[in-house]
Protein backbone atom coordinates (compact mmCIF):
# COMPACT_ATOMS: atom_id res chain seq x y z
CA UNK A 1 0.00 0.00 0.00
CA UNK A 2 1.26 3.44 -0.94
CA UNK A 3 0.80 6.64 1.06
CA UNK A 4 -0.28 8.63 -1.99
CA UNK A 5 -1.16 7.55 -5.51
CA UNK A 6 -1.73 10.11 -8.27
CA UNK A 7 -2.76 8.99 -11.75
CA UNK A 8 -2.88 11.37 -14.70
CA UNK A 9 -3.32 14.35 -12.39
CA UNK A 10 -3.57 17.84 -13.85
CA UNK A 11 -4.22 21.03 -11.91
CA UNK A 12 -4.59 24.66 -12.86
CA UNK A 13 -5.19 27.64 -10.60
CA UNK A 14 -8.31 29.71 -11.12
CA UNK A 15 -7.83 32.33 -13.84
CA UNK A 16 -4.59 30.74 -15.12
CA UNK A 17 -4.31 29.42 -18.66
CA UNK A 18 -1.47 26.92 -18.11
CA UNK A 19 -1.42 23.78 -15.99
CA UNK A 20 0.53 24.10 -12.74
CA UNK A 21 0.65 20.28 -12.58
CA UNK A 22 0.75 18.27 -15.77
CA UNK A 23 0.28 14.53 -16.18
CA UNK A 24 1.46 13.65 -12.69
CA UNK A 25 1.76 9.90 -12.15
CA UNK A 26 3.17 9.14 -8.77
CA UNK A 27 3.11 6.29 -6.30
CA UNK A 28 4.66 7.43 -3.02
CA UNK A 29 5.63 4.80 -0.44
CA UNK A 30 5.29 5.27 3.32
CA UNK A 31 8.38 6.74 4.93
CA UNK A 32 10.48 9.89 4.47
CA UNK A 33 9.81 11.57 1.14
CA UNK A 34 11.65 14.57 -0.23
CA UNK A 35 10.08 16.55 -3.09
CA UNK A 36 12.51 18.90 -4.75
CA UNK A 37 12.83 21.19 -7.76
CA UNK A 38 13.49 24.87 -8.35
CA UNK A 39 11.10 27.72 -7.48
CA UNK A 40 7.97 27.43 -9.61
CA UNK A 41 8.55 23.75 -10.45
CA UNK A 42 5.27 22.74 -8.80
CA UNK A 43 6.40 21.39 -5.38
CA UNK A 44 3.95 23.52 -3.41
CA UNK A 45 1.12 22.84 -5.85
CA UNK A 46 1.77 19.09 -5.65
CA UNK A 47 1.41 19.19 -1.84
CA UNK A 48 -1.69 21.38 -2.07
CA UNK A 49 -3.39 19.09 -4.57
CA UNK A 50 -2.38 15.85 -2.81
CA UNK A 51 -3.55 17.12 0.59
CA UNK A 52 -6.80 18.52 -0.75
CA UNK A 53 -5.78 22.07 0.22
CA UNK A 54 -5.99 23.12 -3.44
CA UNK A 55 -9.79 23.27 -3.03
CA UNK A 56 -9.24 26.51 -1.10
CA UNK A 57 -7.73 28.05 -4.26
CA UNK A 58 -10.52 26.90 -6.55
CA UNK A 59 -9.10 25.95 -9.91
CA UNK A 60 -9.49 22.72 -11.81
CA UNK A 61 -8.30 19.22 -10.87
CA UNK A 62 -8.27 16.27 -13.29
CA UNK A 63 -7.16 12.70 -12.77
CA UNK A 64 -7.29 10.34 -9.81
CA UNK A 65 -5.79 10.89 -6.34
CA UNK A 66 -5.98 8.32 -3.56
CA UNK A 67 -4.55 8.64 -0.09
CA UNK A 68 -3.61 5.78 2.24
CA UNK A 69 -4.34 7.84 5.35
CA UNK A 70 -5.26 11.25 6.75
CA UNK A 71 -3.06 14.09 5.46
CA UNK A 72 -2.22 17.49 6.89
CA UNK A 73 -0.19 20.20 5.19
CA UNK A 74 1.88 22.85 6.99
CA UNK A 75 2.09 25.59 4.36
CA UNK A 76 4.92 28.05 3.72
CA UNK A 77 2.85 30.87 5.17
CA UNK A 78 2.47 28.91 8.39
CA UNK A 79 1.29 31.98 10.33
CA UNK A 80 -2.10 31.52 8.67
CA UNK A 81 -2.16 28.05 10.23
CA UNK A 82 -1.98 29.24 13.86
CA UNK A 83 -5.31 30.50 15.18
CA UNK A 84 -4.89 30.97 18.94
CA UNK A 85 -2.86 33.52 20.98
CA UNK A 86 -0.48 31.02 22.67
CA UNK A 87 1.01 27.65 21.61
CA UNK A 88 -0.73 25.87 24.52
CA UNK A 89 -4.14 27.29 23.59
CA UNK A 90 -3.50 26.43 19.94
CA UNK A 91 -2.67 22.77 20.61
CA UNK A 92 -5.49 22.32 23.12
CA UNK A 93 -7.97 23.92 20.71
CA UNK A 94 -6.97 21.57 17.89
CA UNK A 95 -7.27 18.48 20.11
CA UNK A 96 -10.58 19.59 21.67
CA UNK A 97 -11.98 19.84 18.16
CA UNK A 98 -10.96 16.23 17.61
CA UNK A 99 -13.01 15.29 20.68
CA UNK A 100 -10.08 14.06 22.80
CA UNK A 101 -10.64 13.96 26.56
CA UNK A 102 -8.70 16.34 28.85
CA UNK A 103 -6.29 13.68 30.14
CA UNK A 104 -5.38 12.63 26.63
CA UNK A 105 -5.02 16.25 25.52
CA UNK A 106 -2.64 16.95 28.39
CA UNK A 107 -0.49 13.89 27.69
CA UNK A 108 -0.32 14.54 23.97
CA UNK A 109 0.41 18.25 24.50
CA UNK A 110 3.35 17.25 26.65
CA UNK A 111 4.70 14.66 24.19
CA UNK A 112 4.41 16.87 21.11
CA UNK A 113 5.85 20.00 22.70
CA UNK A 114 8.78 18.14 24.19
CA UNK A 115 9.53 16.36 20.93
CA UNK A 116 9.58 19.65 19.01
CA UNK A 117 11.49 21.54 21.70
CA UNK A 118 8.74 24.11 22.29
CA UNK A 119 7.83 23.17 25.89
CA UNK A 120 9.42 26.41 27.13
CA UNK A 121 7.31 28.48 24.73
CA UNK A 122 3.85 27.08 25.50
CA UNK A 123 2.56 30.13 27.37
CA UNK A 124 4.32 32.83 25.36
CA UNK A 125 2.24 35.03 23.02
CA UNK A 126 2.53 33.73 19.47
CA UNK A 127 3.29 37.29 18.33
CA UNK A 128 6.36 37.39 20.61
CA UNK A 129 7.89 34.23 19.09
CA UNK A 130 10.53 34.27 16.37
CA UNK A 131 9.62 33.01 12.89
CA UNK A 132 11.45 29.72 13.49
CA UNK A 133 9.61 29.20 16.78
CA UNK A 134 6.25 29.96 15.15
CA UNK A 135 7.03 27.49 12.37
CA UNK A 136 7.65 24.78 14.97
CA UNK A 137 4.36 25.67 16.68
CA UNK A 138 2.61 25.28 13.31
CA UNK A 139 4.18 21.82 12.90
CA UNK A 140 3.12 20.91 16.46
CA UNK A 141 -0.40 22.07 15.68
CA UNK A 142 -0.45 19.84 12.59
CA UNK A 143 0.81 16.89 14.67
CA UNK A 144 -1.91 17.47 17.24
CA UNK A 145 -4.43 16.37 14.60
CA UNK A 146 -2.73 12.89 14.56
CA UNK A 147 -2.17 12.76 10.81
CA UNK A 148 -0.94 9.65 8.99
CA UNK A 149 0.67 11.78 6.30
CA UNK A 150 2.40 15.02 7.28
CA UNK A 151 3.39 17.42 4.51
CA UNK A 152 5.84 20.23 5.23
CA UNK A 153 6.31 22.96 2.63
CA UNK A 154 9.83 24.40 2.95
CA UNK A 155 10.39 23.66 6.65
CA UNK A 156 13.96 24.98 6.32
CA UNK A 157 12.69 28.46 5.50
CA UNK A 158 12.87 29.29 9.20
CA UNK A 159 13.61 26.21 11.30
CA UNK A 160 17.38 26.33 11.82
CA UNK A 161 19.48 23.59 10.21
CA UNK A 162 20.69 22.39 13.65
CA UNK A 163 17.09 21.66 14.66
CA UNK A 164 15.66 20.27 11.44
CA UNK A 165 16.78 16.69 12.02
CA UNK A 166 15.39 16.80 15.56
CA UNK A 167 12.07 18.07 14.23
CA UNK A 168 11.91 15.42 11.49
CA UNK A 169 12.89 12.61 13.88
CA UNK A 170 10.27 13.79 16.36
CA UNK A 171 7.60 13.73 13.68
CA UNK A 172 8.35 10.11 12.83
CA UNK A 173 8.38 9.09 16.49
CA UNK A 174 4.95 10.63 17.02
CA UNK A 175 3.31 8.07 14.77
CA UNK A 176 3.27 9.84 11.42
CA UNK A 177 3.68 7.15 8.77
CA UNK A 178 4.68 9.32 5.83
CA UNK A 179 6.51 12.66 6.07
CA UNK A 180 6.61 14.55 2.79
CA UNK A 181 8.97 17.52 2.71
CA UNK A 182 9.13 20.01 -0.19
CA UNK A 183 12.53 21.72 -0.17
CA UNK A 184 15.28 22.97 -2.43
CA UNK A 185 17.88 23.28 0.38
CA UNK A 186 18.91 19.66 0.38
CA UNK A 187 22.35 19.62 1.95
CA UNK A 188 21.13 19.56 5.56
CA UNK A 189 18.59 16.85 4.62
CA UNK A 190 21.20 14.57 3.07
CA UNK A 191 20.73 11.08 4.44
CA UNK A 192 17.17 11.80 5.57
CA UNK A 193 14.89 10.80 2.67
CA UNK A 194 13.97 7.22 1.84
CA UNK A 195 12.36 8.40 -1.40
CA UNK A 196 13.06 11.34 -3.70
CA UNK A 197 10.80 13.15 -6.16
CA UNK A 198 12.21 15.75 -8.56
CA UNK A 199 9.89 18.19 -10.39
CA UNK A 200 10.33 20.55 -13.30
CA UNK A 201 7.68 22.81 -14.82
CA UNK A 202 4.80 21.04 -13.13
CA UNK A 203 5.91 17.56 -14.18
CA UNK A 204 7.53 14.70 -12.29
CA UNK A 205 11.02 14.15 -13.75
CA UNK A 206 12.27 11.60 -11.24
CA UNK A 207 10.74 9.45 -8.53
CA UNK A 208 12.76 6.78 -6.76
CA UNK A 209 15.48 6.09 -4.23
CA UNK A 210 17.64 9.11 -3.31
CA UNK A 211 20.88 7.20 -3.91
CA UNK A 212 20.21 6.71 -7.57
CA UNK A 213 21.06 10.33 -8.34
CA UNK A 214 21.82 9.98 -12.04
CA UNK A 215 19.32 11.82 -14.16
CA UNK A 216 18.98 14.64 -11.63
CA UNK A 217 20.35 18.08 -12.45
CA UNK A 218 23.79 18.55 -10.95
CA UNK A 219 22.67 21.47 -8.71
CA UNK A 220 20.36 19.01 -6.92
CA UNK A 221 22.48 15.86 -7.12
CA UNK A 222 25.61 17.46 -5.67
CA UNK A 223 23.80 18.35 -2.44
CA UNK A 224 22.93 14.69 -1.91
CA UNK A 225 26.41 13.26 -2.61
CA UNK A 226 29.09 12.28 -0.12
CA UNK A 227 31.62 15.12 0.37
CA UNK A 228 34.38 13.32 -1.57
CA UNK A 229 32.15 12.71 -4.60
CA UNK A 230 30.73 16.24 -4.39
CA UNK A 231 34.28 17.68 -4.35
CA UNK A 232 35.38 15.66 -7.39
CA UNK A 233 32.29 16.55 -9.39
CA UNK A 234 32.31 20.23 -8.38
CA UNK A 235 35.95 20.58 -9.39
CA UNK A 236 35.52 18.73 -12.68
CA UNK A 237 32.53 20.88 -13.63
CA UNK A 238 34.01 24.20 -12.47
CA UNK A 239 31.33 24.81 -9.80
CA UNK A 240 33.67 26.22 -7.18
CA UNK A 241 33.64 29.82 -5.99
Amino acid sequence: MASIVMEGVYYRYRGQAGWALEDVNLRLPWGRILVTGSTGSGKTTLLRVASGAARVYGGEVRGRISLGGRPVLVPQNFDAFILMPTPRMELVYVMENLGLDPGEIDARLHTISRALGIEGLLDRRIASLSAGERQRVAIASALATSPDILMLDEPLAYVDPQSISRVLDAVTMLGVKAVIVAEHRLHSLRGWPSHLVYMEEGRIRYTGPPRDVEGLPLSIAIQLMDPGDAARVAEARGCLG
Partner: protein
Amino acid sequence: MSLRLEDVWVRVLQGVSLEVSGGVVAILGRNGSGKTTLLRVITGLLKPDRGRVEAPGRVGASWQNPYFSFHRQTVLEELEEVAGDRGYAAEVLESYGIGDLAYRSPFTLSMGQARLLSILLATLWGPELVVVDEPTSGLGPGERSMVSRLLAGLGTTIVFATHDLDFALEVADRVVVLDRGRVVLDLPSLEAFYGDELYRLGFPRPLAVEVGLALGRVVRSVSC
Protein backbone atom coordinates in the same frame (compact mmCIF):
# COMPACT_ATOMS: atom_id res chain seq x y z
CA MET B 1 30.33 54.46 9.90
CA SER B 2 30.51 53.06 13.35
CA LEU B 3 28.08 50.87 15.22
CA ARG B 4 28.71 50.15 18.87
CA LEU B 5 26.61 48.13 21.30
CA GLU B 6 27.77 47.95 24.90
CA ASP B 7 26.36 45.42 27.33
CA VAL B 8 22.85 45.54 25.83
CA TRP B 9 20.05 43.84 27.77
CA VAL B 10 16.53 43.68 26.36
CA ARG B 11 14.06 40.81 25.81
CA VAL B 12 16.21 37.72 25.14
CA LEU B 13 19.49 39.67 24.81
CA GLN B 14 21.73 39.24 27.84
CA GLY B 15 24.61 41.67 27.77
CA VAL B 16 25.46 41.85 24.07
CA SER B 17 28.48 43.92 23.05
CA LEU B 18 29.32 44.38 19.38
CA GLU B 19 31.37 46.81 17.33
CA VAL B 20 31.06 47.08 13.56
CA SER B 21 33.04 49.57 11.51
CA GLY B 22 32.44 48.16 8.02
CA GLY B 23 32.12 45.04 5.90
CA VAL B 24 29.44 42.39 5.80
CA VAL B 25 28.58 40.79 9.14
CA ALA B 26 26.46 37.64 9.48
CA ILE B 27 24.60 37.04 12.74
CA LEU B 28 24.01 33.31 13.22
CA GLY B 29 22.10 31.45 15.93
CA ARG B 30 19.30 29.02 16.59
CA ASN B 31 15.62 29.91 16.50
CA GLY B 32 14.93 32.26 19.39
CA SER B 33 18.60 33.08 20.09
CA GLY B 34 18.00 36.83 19.70
CA LYS B 35 19.03 37.54 16.09
CA THR B 36 15.95 39.57 15.16
CA THR B 37 15.92 41.31 18.55
CA LEU B 38 19.54 42.38 17.98
CA LEU B 39 18.67 43.82 14.55
CA ARG B 40 15.74 45.69 16.08
CA VAL B 41 18.07 47.23 18.66
CA ILE B 42 20.55 48.25 15.93
CA THR B 43 17.81 50.00 13.92
CA GLY B 44 16.51 51.77 17.04
CA LEU B 45 13.10 50.08 16.90
CA LEU B 46 13.79 48.56 20.29
CA LYS B 47 15.44 50.48 23.16
CA PRO B 48 17.67 48.48 25.48
CA ASP B 49 16.57 48.08 29.10
CA ARG B 50 20.22 48.38 30.02
CA GLY B 51 23.40 49.18 28.08
CA ARG B 52 24.38 51.63 25.35
CA VAL B 53 23.82 51.78 21.60
CA GLU B 54 25.66 54.09 19.22
CA ALA B 55 24.35 53.67 15.70
CA PRO B 56 24.78 55.76 12.56
CA GLY B 57 21.98 58.18 11.69
CA ARG B 58 20.96 56.51 8.44
CA VAL B 59 20.14 52.82 8.82
CA GLY B 60 18.17 50.91 6.14
CA ALA B 61 16.29 47.76 7.09
CA SER B 62 14.68 44.80 5.35
CA TRP B 63 12.60 42.61 7.68
CA GLN B 64 11.55 38.96 7.63
CA ASN B 65 8.20 39.76 6.04
CA PRO B 66 9.23 41.80 2.99
CA TYR B 67 5.63 42.72 2.17
CA PHE B 68 5.58 44.97 5.26
CA SER B 69 8.01 47.28 3.40
CA PHE B 70 5.51 48.08 0.67
CA HIS B 71 2.77 50.70 0.46
CA ARG B 72 2.65 51.90 -3.17
CA GLN B 73 0.63 50.78 -6.19
CA THR B 74 3.55 49.55 -8.29
CA VAL B 75 7.09 48.27 -7.88
CA LEU B 76 8.43 51.25 -9.83
CA GLU B 77 6.65 53.75 -7.56
CA GLU B 78 8.12 52.05 -4.49
CA LEU B 79 11.64 52.39 -5.88
CA GLU B 80 11.08 55.88 -7.23
CA GLU B 81 10.01 57.12 -3.82
CA VAL B 82 13.21 55.85 -2.24
CA ALA B 83 15.64 56.60 -5.09
CA GLY B 84 14.07 60.00 -5.81
CA ASP B 85 14.22 59.50 -9.57
CA ARG B 86 11.98 57.42 -11.82
CA GLY B 87 14.57 56.86 -14.56
CA TYR B 88 17.15 55.65 -12.07
CA ALA B 89 14.58 53.41 -10.38
CA ALA B 90 13.76 51.81 -13.75
CA GLU B 91 17.48 51.33 -14.46
CA VAL B 92 17.99 49.56 -11.14
CA LEU B 93 15.12 47.17 -11.91
CA GLU B 94 16.61 46.43 -15.33
CA SER B 95 20.07 45.83 -13.89
CA TYR B 96 18.65 43.08 -11.65
CA GLY B 97 16.74 41.56 -14.56
CA ILE B 98 13.34 42.38 -13.08
CA GLY B 99 12.38 45.29 -15.33
CA ASP B 100 9.20 43.42 -16.29
CA LEU B 101 7.94 43.77 -12.71
CA ALA B 102 7.90 47.62 -12.86
CA TYR B 103 4.13 48.00 -13.15
CA ARG B 104 3.11 45.06 -10.94
CA SER B 105 1.66 45.66 -7.50
CA PRO B 106 4.44 44.84 -5.01
CA PHE B 107 1.92 42.79 -3.03
CA THR B 108 1.56 40.29 -5.90
CA LEU B 109 5.30 39.53 -6.10
CA SER B 110 6.67 36.09 -5.27
CA MET B 111 8.53 35.82 -1.96
CA GLY B 112 11.88 35.98 -3.76
CA GLN B 113 10.94 39.01 -5.83
CA ALA B 114 9.48 40.72 -2.75
CA ARG B 115 12.66 40.03 -0.78
CA LEU B 116 14.82 41.52 -3.53
CA LEU B 117 12.63 44.63 -3.75
CA SER B 118 12.61 45.04 0.02
CA ILE B 119 16.43 44.92 0.13
CA LEU B 120 16.66 47.40 -2.75
CA LEU B 121 14.30 49.75 -0.87
CA ALA B 122 16.47 49.43 2.23
CA THR B 123 19.64 50.34 0.34
CA LEU B 124 18.85 52.75 -2.52
CA TRP B 125 18.55 55.92 -0.43
CA GLY B 126 22.20 55.79 0.63
CA PRO B 127 22.12 54.60 4.24
CA GLU B 128 25.42 54.14 6.10
CA LEU B 129 24.35 50.77 7.41
CA VAL B 130 21.84 48.22 6.13
CA VAL B 131 20.36 45.45 8.26
CA VAL B 132 18.62 42.47 6.65
CA ASP B 133 16.72 39.80 8.56
CA GLU B 134 16.82 36.38 6.88
CA PRO B 135 17.77 37.55 3.39
CA THR B 136 17.33 34.10 1.82
CA SER B 137 14.24 32.62 3.44
CA GLY B 138 11.59 31.77 0.87
CA LEU B 139 14.03 32.19 -2.01
CA GLY B 140 14.78 29.71 -4.77
CA PRO B 141 18.41 29.12 -5.88
CA GLY B 142 18.22 31.67 -8.72
CA GLU B 143 16.76 34.38 -6.49
CA ARG B 144 19.24 33.50 -3.79
CA SER B 145 22.21 34.20 -6.04
CA MET B 146 20.57 37.47 -7.10
CA VAL B 147 20.38 38.54 -3.43
CA SER B 148 23.99 37.50 -2.78
CA ARG B 149 25.10 39.52 -5.82
CA LEU B 150 23.07 42.48 -4.56
CA LEU B 151 24.52 42.38 -1.03
CA ALA B 152 28.07 41.77 -2.24
CA GLY B 153 27.88 44.68 -4.65
CA LEU B 154 26.45 47.31 -2.29
CA GLY B 155 29.68 48.51 -0.77
CA THR B 156 27.71 49.62 2.30
CA THR B 157 28.17 48.13 5.75
CA ILE B 158 25.69 45.28 6.14
CA VAL B 159 24.58 43.31 9.19
CA PHE B 160 22.31 40.39 8.37
CA ALA B 161 20.76 37.59 10.44
CA THR B 162 20.44 34.17 8.90
CA HIS B 163 20.51 30.45 9.50
CA ASP B 164 21.52 29.85 5.89
CA LEU B 165 25.16 28.95 6.55
CA ASP B 166 26.05 28.54 2.87
CA PHE B 167 24.85 32.06 2.23
CA ALA B 168 26.78 33.46 5.22
CA LEU B 169 29.97 31.78 3.99
CA GLU B 170 29.45 33.16 0.50
CA VAL B 171 28.87 36.83 1.37
CA ALA B 172 29.98 37.62 4.94
CA ASP B 173 33.44 38.85 6.03
CA ARG B 174 32.67 38.24 9.67
CA VAL B 175 30.50 35.85 11.66
CA VAL B 176 28.88 36.57 15.04
CA VAL B 177 27.05 33.71 16.77
CA LEU B 178 24.30 34.34 19.32
CA ASP B 179 23.28 31.65 21.78
CA ARG B 180 20.43 32.33 24.20
CA GLY B 181 20.98 36.05 23.93
CA ARG B 182 24.77 36.10 24.32
CA VAL B 183 27.58 36.48 21.78
CA VAL B 184 29.45 33.17 21.92
CA LEU B 185 31.62 33.50 18.80
CA ASP B 186 32.91 36.47 16.80
CA LEU B 187 35.41 35.60 14.06
CA PRO B 188 36.40 36.47 10.51
CA SER B 189 34.14 34.40 8.28
CA LEU B 190 36.72 32.00 6.82
CA GLU B 191 38.26 31.38 10.23
CA ALA B 192 34.81 30.54 11.59
CA PHE B 193 33.81 28.23 8.74
CA TYR B 194 37.17 26.51 8.32
CA GLY B 195 37.87 26.21 12.08
CA ASP B 196 36.23 23.97 14.68
CA GLU B 197 34.45 26.29 17.07
CA LEU B 198 31.36 26.87 14.93
CA TYR B 199 30.75 23.14 14.64
CA ARG B 200 31.36 22.56 18.34
CA LEU B 201 28.35 24.84 18.84
CA GLY B 202 26.26 22.34 16.85
CA PHE B 203 26.14 24.00 13.43
CA PRO B 204 26.25 21.63 10.46
CA ARG B 205 29.08 22.07 7.91
CA PRO B 206 27.95 23.85 4.74
CA LEU B 207 28.40 21.97 1.46
CA ALA B 208 31.14 24.40 0.33
CA VAL B 209 33.18 23.68 3.48
CA GLU B 210 32.85 19.91 3.07
CA VAL B 211 33.96 20.25 -0.54
CA GLY B 212 36.78 22.62 0.47
CA LEU B 213 38.03 20.21 3.15
CA ALA B 214 37.92 17.31 0.70
CA LEU B 215 39.99 19.35 -1.77
CA GLY B 216 42.33 20.81 0.85
CA ARG B 217 41.62 24.44 -0.02
CA VAL B 218 39.18 27.24 0.72
CA VAL B 219 35.90 27.06 -1.19
CA ARG B 220 33.25 29.72 -0.48
CA SER B 221 30.47 28.52 -2.73
CA VAL B 222 29.44 25.58 -4.86
CA SER B 223 27.09 26.37 -7.70
CA CYS B 224 26.62 24.00 -10.59
